[in-house]
């Protein structure tokens, strides 16, 4: 069995690709870990769509304010230089192209950049979209962090998404436990392998052709 990157290592690797001074929106789950791995000398400003720019780390029990939460409804703090605003202003930041990077988890991502991460499409499922469709259309760079395969060993990087799309052609980079993959006009292209992982293994576990790294 392969080893690859842990969740923390995936987050740390993604953080390397975010520029100093970037405005960043982090999805729920592994993406949230990025805030723990900001590279030395860089400062990211976190946007949370419920109305806070400059989100800080979780509060101590003393600091906790029931009215200060993030979009995942977890208690957070406000960093120095933060600001509060209403929801229409918050989504103006998103839709208006002011956020530099959004890092999301996903169920599927396709070689053309399509992403499906809001609904399995199963009959009877209660649809719930939140801000996902706004984020993928509005943020300048959409990065995905995900296990390379589902729990059932099926590829999450696919030729075409079988689940309902969140947005078409929006993803630029994918960080998995096995590799960093970019989405190019020619499809998936390997950027970097996790330690101990071979290109063959990544190719085998990817549901679409994958190109070797650009020279």
């Amino acid at each position: 069995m392969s080893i690859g990157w842990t969740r923390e290592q995936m987050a740390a690797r993604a953080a390397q690709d975010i520029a100093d001074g970037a405005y960043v929106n982090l999805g729920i789950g592994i993406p949230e870990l990025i805030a723990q791995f900001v590279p030395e000398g860089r400062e990211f400003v976190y946007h949370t769509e419920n109305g806070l720019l400059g989100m800080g780390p979780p509060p101590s029990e003393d600091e906790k304010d029931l009215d200060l939460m993030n979009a995942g409804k977890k208690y957070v703090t406000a960093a120095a230089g933060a600001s509060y605003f209403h929801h229409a202003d918050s989504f103006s930041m998103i839709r208006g192209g002011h956020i530099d990077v959004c890092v999301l988890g996903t169920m599927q991502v396709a070689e053309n950049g399509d992403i499906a991460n809001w609904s399995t499409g199963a009959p009877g499922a209660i649809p719930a979209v939140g801000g996902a469709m706004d984020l993928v259309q509005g943020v300048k760079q959409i990065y995905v962090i995900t296990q390379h395969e589902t729990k059932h060993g099926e590829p999450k990087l696919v030729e075409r998404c079988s689940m309902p799309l969140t947005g078409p052609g929006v993803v630029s980079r994918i960080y998995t436990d096995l590799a960093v993959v970019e989405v190019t006009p020619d499809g998936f292209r390997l950027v970097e392998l996790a330690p101990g992982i071979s290109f063959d293994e990544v190719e085998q576990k990817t549901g679409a052709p994958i190109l070797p790294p650009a020279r």
Partner: protein
Amino acid sequence: MIDKQVSSIPEAIADISDGATVMIGGFGASGSPIELIHALIDQGTRDLTVINNNTGNGEVGLAALIGNGQVRKMICSFPKSSQSKVFPELYSAGKIELELVPQGTLAERIRAAGAGIPAFYTPTTVGTVLAEGKESREFDGRRYVMEPWLQADFALIKSEVADRHGNLLYNKTARNFSPIMAMAATTTIVQSKRLVAPGEINPEHVVTPGIFVDRIVEVAQPVHEDTLIGQGRAYP
């Protein structure tokens, strides 16, 4: 003299009648006007259309209003919650309607209603099933869908500080949808933790100008939805 204060919660919401469309501020537990919602449960108003980002948590507040069978239709972006089974059960049983609206589109539709903009174009949902049936067109080579404003008869809002003109301040991320809902509703009803004299709120700091507010009732010690849920409470 302008004085939008009313002396009791039941009086503040008395004219919300069956079939009304009601915006309720709050994102999750933060900013939810629990006392106003519970009064609406006491009043027994039915057949409501409720606009909120979610569908409530636990068995208090909005979840309790839904659970009590008073809501015909929810307009929201994220009707699932780890802390509430109320909406999912009713929805699965076909006993409540749902209009699913992406969060940013929901916010913008509400703001548009307050701003007198009957429709606008957004890239959100383009290329997805949620764009089906919507009018779309290209601007500068990119496709957008048209979205209509979202108006309401009433808005129920929680504020931190208010004056008799209706100027409001909020607490941190409890602000969320409340300022735009106050703009979009015909009648905006506010429960405020503190009431101050006009002039005590710095005009530079006002978040919701009084023009968007119709009634204010003081609720000096509001319960927080998260506290009630932590105590395992249900309403009524």
